[in-house]
């Protein structure tokens, strides 16, 4: 019974915790500008994320090491400094963007600018990490984040053309605005395959003390939780394709996204949108700040755990405190949507340094024993690695050409 509950919670928090500033913005922009045509990027991102999350969870369970610790031990600190720096820089940008967008949610109901809200939101996130534990951060925000299912109901109410949506799941070339189309695809992939997700997930597996008998839970959570979570992102794209695309509205600010839900649900859509935006982005901010602390602590070999009192892991707590102190400065100084778009492109560019080592680690007989990768897993990881290398070279130029 406990296992069933654990699986259920894993799936539910996967769904509720999937949507955040990046996936929301990139899906909505794609739907508004290209209709269903970029659905394939979301499907590809979701499949890649499922493979990476399952692999990082399996690595943590079998080796009793997080992805960051395993990379540092196997490749040395010299190499590890690459994913460390890339991970911290990218996570910092994404953290600032999540804080700004949580501020936008508060701005929608108060009229006070997100620039002012970024600071109290950061304080709230810091308080959650300081007083809470890993379960509260992950499952609490994930469960509350289920309000993001409003996009599923909005899409169903708008009666999408399922045939055209299925056709969009297959890659196709754009008729015009090629740079914007490919930048949209790269941003979606960056938002879907954020390295912070698998660094966080593997740290969580160690925090929750998963054992080998938990491997099926890992597989189900990764597959169904992330799969259904990505389904919510697809529904954001669908609502934008049905509300904005026919009217020629291109998303220029997060505030406009409220109309995606208010249009099909005039009585309560706006309130649900504000809740979904605020909760999912606040939850993501807490997880990202924690990931920055995990990366730094695991990289330098200092004690870490969100399940202990902050005083017992002072340096670990200091890292997320510093992240919450500095990120609102960036959040308050920039446009949230432009910051999100840029951070998604940088995330996509940073993927190879985190993804390529996984291929080696998961084939390490000593580390993984009988749970090392089989042929299908290796084929999937090689394909993702190739895609990550392509993204490294195209994402930043496309950000300039396509409107980052």
């Amino acid at each position: 019974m406990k296992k069933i509950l654990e699986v259920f919670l894993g799936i539910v928090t996967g769904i509720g915790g999937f949507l955040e500033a990046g996936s929301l913005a990139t899906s909505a922009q794609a739907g508004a500008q290209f209709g269903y045509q970029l659905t394939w990027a979301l499907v590809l991102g979701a499949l890649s994320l499922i493979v990476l999350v399952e692999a990082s969870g399996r690595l943590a369970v079998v080796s009793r090491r997080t992805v960051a610790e395993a990379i540092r031990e196997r490749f040395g600190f010299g190499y590890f400094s690459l994913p460390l720096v890339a991970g911290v820089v990218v996570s910092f940008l994404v953290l600032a963007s999540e804080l700004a967008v949580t501020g936008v949610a508060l701005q929608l109901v108060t009229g006070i600018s997100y620039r002012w809200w970024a600071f109290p939101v950061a304080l709230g996130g810091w308080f959650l990490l300081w007083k809470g534990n890993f379960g509260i951060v992950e499952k609490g925000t994930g469960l509350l984040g289920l309000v993001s299912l409003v996009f599923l109901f909005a899409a169903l109410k708008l009666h999408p053309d399922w045939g055209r949506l299925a056709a969009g799941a297959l890659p196709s070339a754009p008729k015009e605005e090629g740079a914007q189309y490919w930048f949209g695809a790269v941003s979606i992939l960056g938002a879907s395959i954020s390295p912070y997700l698998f660094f966080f997930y593997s740290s969580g597996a160690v925090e929750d003390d998963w054992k080998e008998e938990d491997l099926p839970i890992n597989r189900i959570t990764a597959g169904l939780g992330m799969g259904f979570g990505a389904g919510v992102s697809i529904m954001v794209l669908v609502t934008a394709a049905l509300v904005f695309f026919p009217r020629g509205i291109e998303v220029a600010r997060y505030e406009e996204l409220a109309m995606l839900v208010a249009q099909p649900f005039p009585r309560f859509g706006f309130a649900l949108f504000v809740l979904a935006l605020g909760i999912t982005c606040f939850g993501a901010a807490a997880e990202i700040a924690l990931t920055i602390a995990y990366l730094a602590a695991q990289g330098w070999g200092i004690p870490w755990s969100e399940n202990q009192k902050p005083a017992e892991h002072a340096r670990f707590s200091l890292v997320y405190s510093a992240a919450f102190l500095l990120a609102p400065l960036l959040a308050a100084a920039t446009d949230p949507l432009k910051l999100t778009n840029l951070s998604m492109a940088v995330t996509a560019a940073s993927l190879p340094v985190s993804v390529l080592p996984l291929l080696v680690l998961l084939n390490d007989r000593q580390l993984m024993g009988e749970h090392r990768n089989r042929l299908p897993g290796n084929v999937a990881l090689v394909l993702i690695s190739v895609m990550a290398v392509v993204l490294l070279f195209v994402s930043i130029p496309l950000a300039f050409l396509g409107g980052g």
Partner: protein
Amino acid sequence: MRRHSPWWSRGAVALLALCGCGGGGAGEAAKEAASIAAGAQLAASLRASGAVPRVYAAQLAGDLRGELAKARQTLGADGDAGAAAARLDGVLEKMGRAARGGDRAGLRRAAAAAGGLGRALSGAADSIEAAGGGR
């Protein structure tokens, strides 16, 4: 035929855009103005039916005016697109006032006017691009 600017100039535009500054060509600006008009039409009609709160509609009208000001810098005052954008600015001002004052009839009028101007701007954008004035 579209004119292409060098990569470094596009890079500078993207970096400026991150700070909320800069803009593209006239065709692109007319398209942005058309998108703003369509957004205003939807927001005004949603507020008129009570689907979004007063503070939201009033603030969005102000934000859209800010976005439109950037597009108008590129479009200038002359030509169909420039004139339509100038009229749209007035409509957005009225929309903001109607939203703040709870004037639903005013919001419906603003929605209708924004819809018409959106179609005019979209047509103007096509004409500019056909004439080679796009980015």
